[in-house]
């Protein structure tokens, strides 16, 4: 049963990912990316990581993508949305990407990952994650908090009309 669900999610995810890079209108790409992110969140649930799934929906879909759309709309990208696609001068990428993908798949999955077990059926609880985050991973957590402050200052300073 889980496998069937996974295959459905995976198929939709790949389809919408392709849509992200092929659609001409950035707003449509954003919609496709939202779909893809939601599918990946569903896969997280299947992989017994419900907290990560909701974090993905909360931060990525709920905030990051809104930011994207906001910028697309503020800048009124309608006029600039059309671009020649496919682009002839980069034809070689079309040739290389599928080859690398196949190679990646065969190489990575060829011999498998011997250290990996079958996986448990229990979902990771928030309590466990929270404890780990504030003990073992306290240092990176604090670094990320500084990083968010820096990013906030940076984003504001870039966008604010400083003086004219």
């Amino acid at each position, binding site marked *: 049963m889980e496998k069937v669900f996974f295959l459905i999610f995976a198929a939709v995810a790949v389809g919408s990912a392709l849509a992200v890079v092929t659609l001409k209108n950035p707003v449509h790409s954003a919609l496709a990316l939202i779909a893809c992110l939601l599918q990946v969140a569903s896969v997280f649930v299947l992989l017994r990581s419900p907290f990560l799934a909701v974090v993905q929906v909360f931060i990525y879909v709920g905030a990051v993508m809104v930011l994207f759309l906001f910028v697309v709309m503020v800048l009124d990208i309608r006029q600039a949305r059309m671009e020649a696609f496919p682009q002839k001068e980069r034809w070689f990428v079309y040739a290389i990407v599928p080859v690398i993908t196949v190679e990646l798949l065969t*190489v990575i999955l060829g*011999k498998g990952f011997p250290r990996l077990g079958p996986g448990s059926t229990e979902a990771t609880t928030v309590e466990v994650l929270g404890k780990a985050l504030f003990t073992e*991973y306290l240092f990176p957590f604090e670094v990320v908090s*500084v990083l968010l402050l820096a990013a906030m200052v940076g*984003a504001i300073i870039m966008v604010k009309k400083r003086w004219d």
Partner: protein
Amino acid sequence: MIFGIKDVIAVLPEITVAGAASCLLLVDFLIPRERKSAVGVLAIIFVIFAAIFSIFLMGTDVMGTTVFAGMFAVDGFSTFFKYVVYAAAVLSIMLSFHYVKEEGINAGEYYILMLFSLSGMMVMASAKDLLTVYVGLELMSLPVYVLVGFMQGDVRSNEGAMKYVILGAFSSAILLYGISLIYGLTGSTGLHAVAAVLSSGSVNQGALNVAVIMMVAGFAFKIAGVPFHMWAPDAYEGAPTPITAFMSVGPKAAAFAVILRVFMEGLGPAYGKWQIMLAAVAVASLAYGNLTAIAQRNIKRMLAYSSIGHAGYALLGLVAGTSEGVSSVMYYMAVYALMNLGVFAVIIMMRKGGQRGTEIDEYAGLAKSHKGLALVMLIFLFALAGVPPTAGFVAKFYVFMALIHKGMVGLALFAVLMSAVAAYFYIRIVMLMYMREPVKEFELAHSRGIYYVLAIATAGTVILGVYPGFLIELAQKASLFP
């Protein structure tokens, strides 16, 4: 696991810098626009405090241990690189005082973002876990993206920042993919645990190859190694010049610190795999960087290509994969910081009024009217070219020795050949300065900050060239394998 006072003491320098940045954000409100240099002065003072704490840590029993559950190492290696980035930050801030006024970008956030970036570099220098490596890397990069685009009204600055941020994020994603594979292969992200599993040999070699390729590619982006260098020339040219100086020195040193630690400690057992890839990147960087630099007319662009070339030299030390190689990279980074900041100090001095000081032709005949400045510039250019008795020569020599001791004579010969090529475009500027007649009167920016930087950089370049022993010994002691 409860954290004690020891963990806090161990990260005191980082706390100082990050805390100073946060406090200065508030202080900045109280300072009127025309006196924003005060924020820079305060920033320098705090960095000096951090440096004092770093010295103080060397005497405590925290030295040589890891804290925060093995995430963060306090050792000679990290302290060495922290000093390089402290120097880069302090000297770049000194270079900025005049320049930001000239360009009309004197905002307090300019210095504050530099401090944030500095704290990221410090985290990188001490990172003992791939997770810490990643967050440190991003904390270093994000403020630099913004600083590159700090000249809001200047399209070149905006474009440089845009290219830098897109390619930076792209490279981070590639690096992360490599890290995720390493995690899957070894079940850990701690460098020691990764090394332990890798040396047991029971890993999927194909997937390991992919992971190593991804990590080499991701890190090569950060040090602007060919073929992952495309962002460098545009970002260097577009950025405010003191930021160009800063990013050509600080982030590069921090990235090398991380590369050395990750490859030598974490992926040490996979030496055979990454050695050949890094050698390829190094050779490509040497050839492409030095040959393309010849054709440049803009001095910042030329220095961008030259920095690509220098990344190639430094990488060669890592390719050797020995203790000597590691310490040669450390020495190279320290010396490169001094001589590069020196060159940029001269360039910033040339930025005044209508004179941009970024075109190479603008330097024609400098020696006729400003003998001292031309001499100083000559010293730095000779150092970058690797002419004895400057420190640049010693640094290159030391890298080549590491290669030769490892038996890689071919690589060493190629590198020597490339430094001959490099000498051409550095010395071309010297010729311009001394042999040509000046086109017009030179205007020079006189600022105490720039003089200090020139003095420090000149002294460092000359003294380390004549008496290199002291710093080399320090690097050897602080090397990963003393």
